[in-house]
């Protein structure tokens, strides 16, 4: 589904290279966890895949379902089925959750050949999804993320994922800022949403989330490269030993599958 080939990415503004040749293949039905210390390039990877204009691909390619998406705008990537749950979700005062999601749902539906929903149908549809993240209906009429607590914002991202049903979900530190109960709710929601036809990428610092969502593959990113890949056992090793042992020989470029 997603193939990153020797991906080099730099910050457009100052030309700093952040990703220095990432190779990664993600197939349908898989859950991948990308771990690594601060500044290793994990968030950049997610943003580059979803098309953030601040990050420029200088070398390599991003293939989605076999086709390069480098020339696609972020909205076109969303239409194709890419979803990014933001590390810091943006507040949009004046636009309600429902308004945003109906707009999003219908644009995506139109481009993926699904049926668009009128406001009444849509209302029924999203109310079902609320239960997945255990949110109250009044949440729908609040302005997007405005005045939300950190935890509510993260839940809202997963709620949006539930509504939009992406083929590829990139979850950027969705676990940070969540207490243990909220973490369970969010993890549970993600598990229910995940199926054979979609893939999930969890970007996280901590093994904690992986107690609730079991990844098929774990990758470690250091210095803009994937230095080690393995199964869920790798996360436990990292929890135990930290990243130091990997930083020492961070020259290997790991590849999943």
């Amino acid at each position, binding site marked *: 589904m997603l193939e990153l080939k020797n991906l080099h990415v730099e910050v457009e503004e100052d030309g700093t290279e952040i990703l220095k040749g990432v190779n990664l293949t993600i197939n349908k039905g898989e859950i991948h966890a990308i771990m690594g210390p601060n500044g290793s390039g994990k968030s950049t990877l997610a943003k580059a895949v*979803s*098309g*953030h*204009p*601040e990050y420029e691909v200088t070398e390599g390619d991003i293939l989605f379902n076999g086709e390069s998406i480098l020339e696609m*705008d*972020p*909205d076109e*990537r*969303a*239409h194709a089925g890419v*979803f*990014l749950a*933001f590390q810091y*979700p*943006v507040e*949009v*005062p*004046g*636009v309600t959750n429902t308004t*945003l*999601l109906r*707009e*999003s749902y219908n*644009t*995506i539906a139109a481009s993926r050949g699904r049926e668009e929903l009128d406001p009444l149908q849509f209302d029924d549809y999203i109310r079902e999804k609320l239960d997945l993240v255990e949110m109250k209906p009044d949440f729908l009429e609040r*302005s997007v993320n405005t005045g939300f607590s950190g935890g509510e914002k993260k839940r809202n991202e997963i709620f*949006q994922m539930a509504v*939009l049903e992406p083929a590829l979900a990139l979850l950027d530190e969705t676990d940070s800022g969540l207490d243990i109960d909220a973490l369970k709710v969010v993890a549970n929601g993600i598990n229910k949403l995940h199926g054979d036809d979609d893939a999930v990428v969890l970007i996280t610092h901590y093994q904690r989330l992986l107690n609730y969502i079991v990844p098929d593959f774990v990758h470690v990113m250091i210095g803009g490269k994937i230095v080690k890949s393995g199964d869920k056992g790798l996360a436990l090793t990292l929890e135990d030993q930290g990243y130091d042992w990997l930083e020492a020989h961070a020259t290997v470029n790991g590849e999943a599958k």
Partner: protein
Amino acid sequence: MALPTKVEPSILHQLAKGVAENGETKWKDLREKSLEELNTTAFPHKKIEEWRFTDLRPITRTDFVNLDEAGTLPATNIEQYFIPESDRSRLVFINGKFHEKYSSIGGLGKGVTVGNLSDHSEDETVKEYLNQLVNYEKDLFVPYNGLMFEDGAYIHLEKGAKAEAPIQVLNIYTDAKEPYVTTPRMLVVAEEESDVTIVEDHIGLSENRYMTIPVSEVKVKKGAHIHHVRIQRDSRDAIHVARPIAYVEKNSEYHAYTITLGGKLTRNEPRVIQEDEEVDFTLDGLVLIDGDQVADTHSVMDHRFSHAESHQLHKVVVNGNAHSIFNGKIFVRRDAQKIDSFQENRNLLLSLDGLVNAKPQLEIFADDVLCSHGATVGQLDPEEVFYLQSRGMTEEKAKEVLTYAFALETIENVKVESVHKLLIDEVYRYTKANNVEKVSA
């Protein structure tokens, strides 16, 4: 009346001359006083601090004529601007002249007077307050209005009277062969414990140049409440110089919301003056401009007594070559303690060629006050645009939604339903029309 001009005569002085010599009026004393003021007051220019950012050439370089020489065309199809809530409480002025056939007065029952000022020139309230509340230093526009107006809106609420419906004051400006000057006038006196909502609308029917100089005086007596919405939808080539002033007595509330959409040059100088303790007032504004529009707001919130709460949110969206100026003065006089005053000026700059001058100006002489103020000028946040794009919106749509959301906050307190809806439509029209221009990240 002779005209011993003591200052360099401007176009306004020249226009005044003809009228001053022609005399028939119900406002003889007011005219004489205004003429005297006019003749000793010079036309403003950029060297005066209060006018340094404002390009006045649209006024000085236009050959304005008096209204009766302008060849004005008739007003057509103006019913579309009537708000349904005010079908029994509407005053219509066309180029400043009262039109009874479009108006609807006397529908608000006992204790509420709605009418043409010139039909009430002998009322005690009019005699007591008309032209007594205006307080603009060295100002040419107020005396010009005082000299020229004959008709005007008059709204009076007796003690305890509650107007059941909002009162619409509709100022229509028509097309004409020559650019003209018009002087709408309004006097509102809300006696103790009364309550009224006023929707003041200025609408240009065409794209012609004219200058309107509306002056409104509002007196909010003890415990009275006024909700005042002012919508400026002038012709894109019009000049609008407004002087709305309100006085708030003990326990009263005055909430004003001004929406500026039209005009080539707008200079709005709203003032609220506190006359006793325990008051609550608002002077919010929304300005949406593009092309070569200039919108200038110079406001004064004058806290003269203790225990006041005041609120001013002034939001501006600038596109094209448009230019916004904001100077918000907040005075807190000595001994005016326990003041809670909020002022914020937020500017959204959509184009590289737009210009914003923002100047909050706080003069605080008391020590136990809470005054927060801020001014920001910014572009759409690229992170916000990306967020919406990542949810499937095109870049244009995302920018439109964000601009719309930015503007919406200032009108959500407008409590007349049809006006609220109308303003949402206006905001939508603006954001839709302005989403083509590229925003640099």
